[in-house]
């Protein structure tokens, strides 16, 4: 059955080709049907594969030889196992819902751009599937670059707006910095292990010493790639700007799937990371720092999508914390639940923006509860889920990560809970300001307020159900569950688990931890709702709040430390090296030739006698060379 796997990426590729090539001819409805239909087909195949894997048929499917040079052999092969099948389901499932949602959300576009949008979206799904399915680092890298490209194309979808294209460029360049790390790591892996296939690399690596310098280097470089793609410190600033793209794109690419590529990659390479505790420490600290930093910024943002974007960065930080402390299952679990509730929140935000005629500032919203009942309910579910209130999904996944963090270090746990409390606070600040209180927009907007069409609300409802119940597949033993996800994923992480020696936390401590985090989150929620439903912050913040509103001035810092010096160097190179050096050489060559030829022209006397003389002298010279020199 797993031979069907090639169909999974093939369908989106076909969709991309049809929509991309036929965009001048296809009607909008046809484009929408093709675009969504291919993803649905992919999803069905993914489901078949999932059950196949569940029945125990995991393995590598080799399609053809891709690169074969000397001893290096890189096949075009797909890895069908527990980890990739979970990701396949998330990508194609959430992807399908978002495609359906897009058919309605993007309806105002003309058919040409509409088809372009769906073509990009299908290409993105194709690349993401390649990334997840690849059985070696090269195929993964192809997908990795593909999703980066699609992200760029979709952020800059409204390419006539200069700010949007700048945001797209920023995202692309930030990603390139990360890709550079990934690429170096891939070369190093070839040099070290002579292969890029996961199976070979991991089996060779498991024989190496703990904290081997090479392994630490490789994992750090891979992590640099992950920080680019998954928006971690120091490369996270592109993600909030990426909100320039259409909202469904933000939901799909910049919340649910692409940004989790880094987590997938590290989870896939878990054995390397387990063998390099130094890197793991770096990953955990970076993840935690990102989680806190992004959460503080999110508290003071007023753009509905920006809040969600920083929330995404923060949640990704949690996932990296999980990876850093060795809770790979927890990280993957959080990827899954996060995909559901963050996609839900973004689509809900899209629905609000749609209703408000592209108004994104929450200070001009308020009281949307009555006008948008479905959006309101589903958005509320998403907020509760992300805040970590049981029994919704976010509680289970976040709690698993926090428990693992506690067993690694109490400090991790304290900071993690602090971040979780802030998450609850800013999410409900967003919720209360948007949906509660009085409407603060213009009369015209109020008049036009309407619930979104079915194509948008149905995906919201489906995602809300998933966000609510998906946590139950990972109920930990302490709450009487069996944690089915952990059992399912066990084969993938088996190598790492063998090497880990976690301290068991006793159940009482665990109850206490859960109780503490839930109670604190609940307090934060109540405070936020009571404060912001009546009296939202309408003015620009002052004092420390201003620092947060301006995102800790990180963008400005990067601008001053990196961009400006680079500009200076470029200006120097342009004005001095280019103008004087290179142009000088080029023009100098021209001048020398010109001068030399003017002197040589004097030889051209036009006198036949002189020419003959030169000819005779030359013949003489040839004779002399021929006879006496050679």
């Amino acid at each position, binding site marked *: 059955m797993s031979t069907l796997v090639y169909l999974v990426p093939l369908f989106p590729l076909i969709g991309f080709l049809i929509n991309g090539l036929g965009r001048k001819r296809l009607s909008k409805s046809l484009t929408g049907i093709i675009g969504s239909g291919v993803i649905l087909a992919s999803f069905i195949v993914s489901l078949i594969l999932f059950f196949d894997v569940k029945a125990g048929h995991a393995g590598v499917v080799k399609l053809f030889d891709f690169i074969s040079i000397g001893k290096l052999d890189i096949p075009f092969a797909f890895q069908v196992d527990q980890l990739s099948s979970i990701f396949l389901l998330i990508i194609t499932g959430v992807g399908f819902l978002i495609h359906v949602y897009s058919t309605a959300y993007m309806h105002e576009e003309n058919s040409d751009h509409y088809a372009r949008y769906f073509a990009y979206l299908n290409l993105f799904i194709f690349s993401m599937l390649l990334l997840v399915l690849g059985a070696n680092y090269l195929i993964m890298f192809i997908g990795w670059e593909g999703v980066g490209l699609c992200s760029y194309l979709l952020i800059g979808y409204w390419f006539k707006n200069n700010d949007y294209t700048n945001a797209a460029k920023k995202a692309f360049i930030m990603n390139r910095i990360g890709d550079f790390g990934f690429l170096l790591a891939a070369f190093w892996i070839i040099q070290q292990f002579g292969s890029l296939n996961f199976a070979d690399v991991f089996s060779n690596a498991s024989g190496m010493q703990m904290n081997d310098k090479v392994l630490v280097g490789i994992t750090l470089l891979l992590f640099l790639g992950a920080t680019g793609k998954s928006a971690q410190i120091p490369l996270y600033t592109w993600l909030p700007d990426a909100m320039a793209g259409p909202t469904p794109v933000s939901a799909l690419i910049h919340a649910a799937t692409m940004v989790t590529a880094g987590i997938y990659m590290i989870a896939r390479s878990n054995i390397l990371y387990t063998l390099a505790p130094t890197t793991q420490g770096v990953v955990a600290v970076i993840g935690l720092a990102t989680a806190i930093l992004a959460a503080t910024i999110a508290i003071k943002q007023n753009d509905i999508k920006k809040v969600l974007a920083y929330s995404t960065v923060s949640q990704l930080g949690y996932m990296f914390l999980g990876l850093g402390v060795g809770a790979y299952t927890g990280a993957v679990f959080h990827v899954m639940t996060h995909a559901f509730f963050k996609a839900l929140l973004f689509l809900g935000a899209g629905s609000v923006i749609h209703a408000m005629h592209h108004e994104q500032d929450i200070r001009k919203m308020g009281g949307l509860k009555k006008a948008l009942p479905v959006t309101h309910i589903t958005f509320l579910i998403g907020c509760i889920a992300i805040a970590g209130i049981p029994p919704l999904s976010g509680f289970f996944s976040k709690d698993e990560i926090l428990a693992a963090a506690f067993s690694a270090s109490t400090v991790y746990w304290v900071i993690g809970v602090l971040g979780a409390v802030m998450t609850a606070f800013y999410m409900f600040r967003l919720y209360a300001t948007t949906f509660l209180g009085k409407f603060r927009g213009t009369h015209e907007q109020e008049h036009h307020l309407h619930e979104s069409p079915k194509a948008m609300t149905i995906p919201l409802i489906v995602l809300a159900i998933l966000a609510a119940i998906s946590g139950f597949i990972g109920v930990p033993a302490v709450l009487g569950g069996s944690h089915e996800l952990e059992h399912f994923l066990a084969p993938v992480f088996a190598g790492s688990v063998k090497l880990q020696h976690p301290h068991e936390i006793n159940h009482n401590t665990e109850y206490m931890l859960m109780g503490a985090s839930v109670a604190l989150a609940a307090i934060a929620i109540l405070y936020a709702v009571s404060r912001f439903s009546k009296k939202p912050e309408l003015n620009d913040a002052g004092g420390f709040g201003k620092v947060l509103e301006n995102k800790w001035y990180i963008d400005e810092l990067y601008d001053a430390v990196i961009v400006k010096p680079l500009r200076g160097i470029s200006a120097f190179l342009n004005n001095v090296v280019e103008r004087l050096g290179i142009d000088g050489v080029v023009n100098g060559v021209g001048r020398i030739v010109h001068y030399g030829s003017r002197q040589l022209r004097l030889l051209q006397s036009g006198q036949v*006698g*002189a020419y003959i*003389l030169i000819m005779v*002298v030359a013949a*003489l010279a040839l*004779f002399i060379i021929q*006879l006496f020199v050679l």
Partner: protein
Amino acid sequence: MLFWFLTVLALGSALMVVFSKNPVHSILWLIITFFAITGHYILLNAQFLAIVNIIVYAGAIMVLFLFVVMMMNLNEISSPLKNKWLKFAGVISGCSLLLVLIAALKDTDTMQQEVLLNTGKIGLINNLGTVLFSDYVLPFEISSVLFLSAMVGAVVIGKK
């Protein structure tokens, strides 16, 4: 003995061709050179070429030269002095070419081979005519075309 006499005659009159001031004198010295070379041909028993040399070169071509010179009436034109250095360089390079050629050729293997004088039938018109009209008939006919085109060319250029 005859060889040395003809050689001295040829070289001497050749030098006079180059160095005499009057073009008509040059032409006359050239005719003498040609006669000396014809003598060499006879000495080599190449009678056909000797006759052709007299008729074509000493007769037709030199008469043509003489006509042209006389038609232009160049006798009194003493050409203004050419650049002395160029003249000097010409003499030097010509002499050094001579030296280099002699130096190059004096040690070759065939140097001491004899040349048949006075006898030998190949230079006679009988043998040459047979070969010319059998093996070389095509080049012979082509050379007639060459003559035709030269004639047309001369007429066209001269008419302008």
